[in-house]
């Protein structure tokens, strides 16, 4: 019996090519659009997380107790043992140290405030480091790097001699001469506006803090495991007495922003889905209602209501499946295409800045649409279900009609 149902359904579909095609296209396009939006949403939130856990925060950070409150120079801690222990942790991809030393700088006689940022050049040259945009230029010895806003505000050019004066961690007067080796863009606003990037060992020497630093930035393989990473690091004996926090707790407000944006966009995803569902439903309802005459004929020829419903069910199922699969292929390939190259928001909507500074971070306006198996599964299920329901309901109504009434319609 099933065989006949399927064959009838199949033949029905083929017989009315245009109607079939119409329904298929509606379903496929709607599914494609839902997937595209989903890809954009996921890419966008992933990108936000990526930027936030990039150079500025990493996945987790280690500080001396109380440093984050006052950023006092003398609240540093010895790093060698800590770095070794932390790098040995499974799941840690990278760990490097930083120094933050407020000081006074001068080119001529006029002093201006700055922050000496001591960094590990090799580590920060990586994709997630402060020097990721520096095109391979790194500070070393007396050669330092600065940001463009800082250079412009204080009249510094490449090759300029910069005197730096400050208080060392032991209270002594720290002072030395440096050469501006390059003006580089960093992803952290504060560094661009006030920072002087210096090799870590040089900063340790200048600020009289041998073997010490203010911050260790940890990076794991999976950003979603950041909390576990922080907990594992905190449990190490070498880190006793130090404060270890994952990025959501280091910057709860940034984290909240992501969450709220996620909810807002998710709300819109819901709307997109509703729109798509409405479109699909409309199409299927329309198609089915238009077939009243045809269905009436089948009833008159002796088909049972049950059989009728089953036929329509198989039709709708076939349509739905093929439609979502086609749509998934279309949407999925579009996302895959843009995933590598990324989508530049500025280009897409016609002009605007190509990067902007917000909440202390410089954001480049390119994000990468992404889809996961979960996204495919949910949208396929959703759209398919809607198609089925939208076809079955009118079918059920028709099935209960008297054949003559149906024929006359």
């Amino acid at each position, binding site marked *: 019996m099933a065989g006949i149902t399927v064959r009838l359904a199949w033949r029905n579909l083929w017989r009315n090519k245009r109607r079939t095609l119409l329904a298929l296209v509606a379903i496929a396009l709607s599914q494609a659009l839902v997937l595209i939006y989903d890809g954009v949403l996921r890419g966008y939130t992933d990108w936000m997380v990526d930027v936030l856990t990039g150079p500025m925060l990493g996945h987790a950070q280690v500080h001396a107790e109380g440093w984050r409150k006052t950023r006092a120079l*003398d609240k540093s801690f010895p790093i060698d043992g800590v770095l070794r222990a932390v790098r040995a942790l499974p799941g840690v991809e990278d760990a490097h140290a930083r120094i933050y030393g407020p000081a*006074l700088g*001068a080119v001529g*006689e*006029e*002093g*201006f*405030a700055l922050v000496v940022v001591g960094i590990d050049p090799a580590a920060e040259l990586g994709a997630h480091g402060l020097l990721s945009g520096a095109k391979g230029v790194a500070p070393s010895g007396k050669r330092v790097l600065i940001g463009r806003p800082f250079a412009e505000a204080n009249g510094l050019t490449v090759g300029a001699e910069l*005197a730096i*004066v400050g*208080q060392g*961690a*032991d*209270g*002594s*007067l720290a*002072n*030395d*001469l440096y050469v501006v080796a390059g003006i580089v863009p960093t992803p952290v606003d504060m560094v661009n506006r006030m920072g002087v990037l210096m090799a870590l060992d040089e900063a340790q020497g200048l600020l009289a803090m041998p073997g010490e630093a203010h911050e260790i930035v940890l990076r794991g393989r999976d950003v979603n495991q950041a909390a576990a990473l922080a907990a594992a690091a905190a449990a190490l004996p070498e880190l006793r007495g130090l404060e270890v926090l994952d990025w959501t707790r280091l910057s709860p407000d940034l984290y909240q922003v992501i969450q709220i944006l996620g909810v807002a966009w998710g709300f819109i995803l819901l709307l997109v889905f509703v729109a798509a569902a409405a479109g699909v439903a409309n199409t299927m309802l329309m198609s089915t209602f238009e077939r009243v005459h045809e269905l009436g004929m089948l009833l008159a020829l002796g088909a049972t209501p049950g059989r009728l419903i089953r036929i329509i069910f198989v039709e709708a199922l076939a349509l739905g499946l093929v439609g979502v699969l086609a749509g998934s292929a279309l949407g999925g390939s579009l996302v895959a295409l843009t995933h590598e190259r990324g989508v530049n928001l500025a280009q897409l909507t016609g002009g605007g800045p190509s990067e902007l500074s917000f909440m202390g971070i410089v954001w480049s306006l390119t994000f990468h649409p992404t889809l996961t198996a979960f996204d495919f599964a949910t949208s396929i299920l959703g759209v398919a279900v809607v198609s089925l329901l939208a076809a079955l309901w009118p079918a059920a109504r028709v099935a209960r009609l008297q054949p003559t009434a149906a024929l006359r319609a």
Partner: protein
Amino acid sequence: MIALAALLSLAATAGAAAPVPPDVDRLLARLDDLYRSKSSIARMEISVTTPRNVRTLRVEAWTRGEDEVLVVVEAPPREAGTATLRVGENLWNWLPRIARTIRVPPSMMLGSWMGTDFTNDDLVKESSLRKDFAARVDRRSDSPAGWWLALEAKEGVVGRWARIELLVGDDDLPIQERHFDRKGRLSRTMTFDEVRVLGGRRLPARMVLVPEGEPGKRTEMRYLEAKFDVALPPDVFSLSRLERSR
């Protein structure tokens, strides 16, 4: 309040049988002027103790009036020759190691003085124990021998301290000052000792400042030599003089 210059009264304190409570007004006037002078040259040792370490500087300091100060570091060797010059609204640092003079912007002038526990208004000699506080003798102290005075800040006085408890020895020299903030909480304690004759004045050569509630922190300042009301060469407080290495 530290009063950083004065003429010491030549009246000897009576070490006689029944200690007589001092004339408070005269006593405070003397204390205000203890370290004050129209000009001075002094060598001092400053020790700052923090939980991390102890740092000792030896400096030579010239002052004229309230507006001109030159401080040159003699020791430790790492910082020797570093100098700070203040003339009116300008503050410069001379850094011999890099042979540079740098002007400190006004916004950065308010911090603690040279990393010590002294505040900037400690160094501005505008506040006066006698004028800003209503004082009375509180009680006698037998060991060390002296009088405890209770000073309450007068209405409308601008300053950190609502109350100061001052222990003055029978020789009219300060032994201890306890500063209470505007909420009446003990904020810091200063002790004075090593009484010597410096620049013709008899005064405590050593001051120790201990802030309350910050374990492991203290600042010591000790006069090695001092000359008060001396004639200073005219170009002492100049940048060029600053830059010549000392």
